[in-house]
């Protein structure tokens, strides 16, 4: 993959980097905060990476563009928030989310992305994981936890190797980063609580006042978090239901199409005078079939494809919804 040009911005301000050459390119500046990182991350974001922009940069209201030569073929990506436009060989394709883009890149053999299993489902690895391979962060950060850290783990790495080499995927249990962090967090909580208990014993008046104040601010943040999570969960549920409906509709469409394609045959006509079955039906004009088997196969296979794509979106939003619910449970100490 050779990056040809990168651009980002909106109607008020924009930056276009077209000076890239086919060799090694170095982007530098004398000072910090000049936008080097934005250019690099904008490039990956345009091609479907997770947003990893510096805080304070409102990426949602900006457009990101990247032109790359992939397998001797020029492809242009344009992204705003979760919508993509891809231009390839004069044709434009639009996508509503990263998953659709991912499937496109895989189906058209643009990137060869391995399959891994997530929560007992076989999925194609996310583009984030793929772009990690190309990105080395600053300082001592290592690429495996710069982008979307914690989502992919050692197990996924093993599965990736399996998938790339044609072995069946492995499922193995382990204490992952997420659990480790949680254990640490709980330990820290215990320590903090112990301190608080000590303070309470020593000076009941002060602690009572602090408790009250702390309680109300804590409650406010708690309320905000619950509200936000509720909205997120509702959003995912809505999305899931819509996609589920569409999937159901497509499935019944397939059945309907198959039944439509049967020619109705009911008995036959004979001549009443001589009994001959050589009756000629004379009609003007065409009797071409409305479609041939090749076209019908194409229609059916693309419906099947859409169904499977919807299944993944349903599964994903289910998973993400679950993350929301889990967070909620944590907060509510259920």
């Amino acid at each position, binding site marked *: 993959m050779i990056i040809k040009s990168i651009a980002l911005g909106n109607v008020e301000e924009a930056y276009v980097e077209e000076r890239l050459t086919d060799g090694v390119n170095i982007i530098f500046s004398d000072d910090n905060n000049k936008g080097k990182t934005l250019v690099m991350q904008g490039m990956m974001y345009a091609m479907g990476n997770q947003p990893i922009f510096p805080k304070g940069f409102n990426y949602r209201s900006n457009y990101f563009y990247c032109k790359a030569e992939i397998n001797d073929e020029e492809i242009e990506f344009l992204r705003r928030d979760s919508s993509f436009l891809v231009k390839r060989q004069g044709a434009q394709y639009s996508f*509503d989310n990263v998953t659709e883009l991912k499937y496109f890149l895989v189906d058209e053999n643009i990137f060869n992305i391995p399959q891994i299993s997530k929560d007992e489902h076989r999925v194609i690895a996310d583009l984030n994981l793929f772009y990690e391979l190309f990105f080395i962060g600053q300082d001592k950060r290592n690429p495996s936890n710069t982008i979307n850290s914690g989502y992919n783990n050692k197990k996924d790495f093993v599965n990736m190797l399996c998938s790339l080499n044609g072995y069946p995927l492995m499922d193995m249990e382990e204490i992952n980063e997420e659990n480790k962090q949680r254990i640490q967090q709980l330990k820290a909580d215990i320590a903090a609580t112990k301190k608080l208990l000590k303070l309470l014993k020593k000076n009941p008046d002060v602690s009572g006042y602090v408790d009250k104040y702390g309680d109300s601010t804590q409650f406010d943040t708690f309320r905000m978090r619950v509200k936000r999570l509720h909205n997120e969960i509702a959003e995912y549920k809505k*999305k899931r239901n819509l996609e589920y409906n569409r999937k159901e509709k497509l499935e019944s*469409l397939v059945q309907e*199409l198959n039944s439509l394609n049967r*020619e109705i045959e009911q008995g036959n006509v004979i001549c009443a005078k001589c009994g001959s079955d050589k009756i000629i039906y004379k009609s003007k004009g*065409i009797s*071409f*079939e409305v479609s041939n088997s090749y076209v019908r196969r*194409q229609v059916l296979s693309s419906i099947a494809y859409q169904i499977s794509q919807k299944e993944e979106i349903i599964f994903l939003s289910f998973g993400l919804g679950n993350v929301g619910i889990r967070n909620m449970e944590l907060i509510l100490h259920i």
Partner: protein
Amino acid sequence: MYRFTTTERNNEKASEYETKAMLYLFGCRQDSRDMDVFIIDCFNDVSGANRDVNRLWDVQSKGVKSLNPKKIGEALVTLFQNYCSDIEFEHYILFMPKLKEMYLNDEDRTYFQIDNFKLQYIDKIKQGLKNEYERRNSIKPQETDLDNFLQMVEFVIAEEQKQGYIRRITSFRSSLRLEEAFYDALFEDIRNQQTILKTKNIDGYQIMNAAEVLQYEKLLWKKEIDELVINRILGMDLFNSRQVPNSFIDEIASLDAEDRKDVIQECQSDIARLLFDKNRRHIFWRFFGRLLSYADAIRVESPREIEEQIRRDNVVIPRILSQKSVVYLISALKEGLNDDN
């Protein structure tokens, strides 16, 4: 054990060449535009004609490997008989596979006249034709007729691939890269239709002028084939969610993202139902033909305007299609008609 070797194979090859010959008339000649209809197996394997059937292109197709000059002469006999008949043909064309190289002066040409044959072979061709004519008619042909006829005959070398013929007869373009197998299947559709027409027997019937041939309905109209090709390409493009026809975007611009998805899926589903409904093909083709007669308007006007127009003109729309689906269908047509690639 008994092994079948010959029965259908030759038939298939022969009919393949007849279809290629027809498609050659349709899209590969300078004067292709002047033809409106193909007459199947009446005067000859295929004859092209204009609407009034007062201009005729007569084609003999010979899908036989290893033609030698004598066989070429024999193959010309029907064309020659037509030349001698009361009906006037503008062109006499022999459509055949690539010849062994040594017969020709310039081997690279795919379209030539008798003068491209080396001198010693021209006589052999003439002799072959003469003998075959005598065998069939039991009289000797006029020497001057033979010479004049041979000066007029056009020889056309067929292409091996079917794909090219199909591509040349339509300017309608798919947004997908279609595989060879698609073109083969489409070629097959046309070939089967041609074969059905061939089985209508008119042996012994007489006509006084060429136009009367229309009554036998052994015809394929260019328009029909054109509609067929567009229909098939459209079918391939249909369930391609990544590429909604550009002009359809206006139709759904005011809806939110989720509603848009629903509308698109419904339209695609409706059209899929239309393309799978075997039992209403007459309704379909009548509608599709009427719709394509608006091709020029579709290129420039918005799909919604066209949809309103056809309703005003009382075009019968298949009941399977909703108003939006019709707009979607027109948008898809617009896309294919306007693609200049």
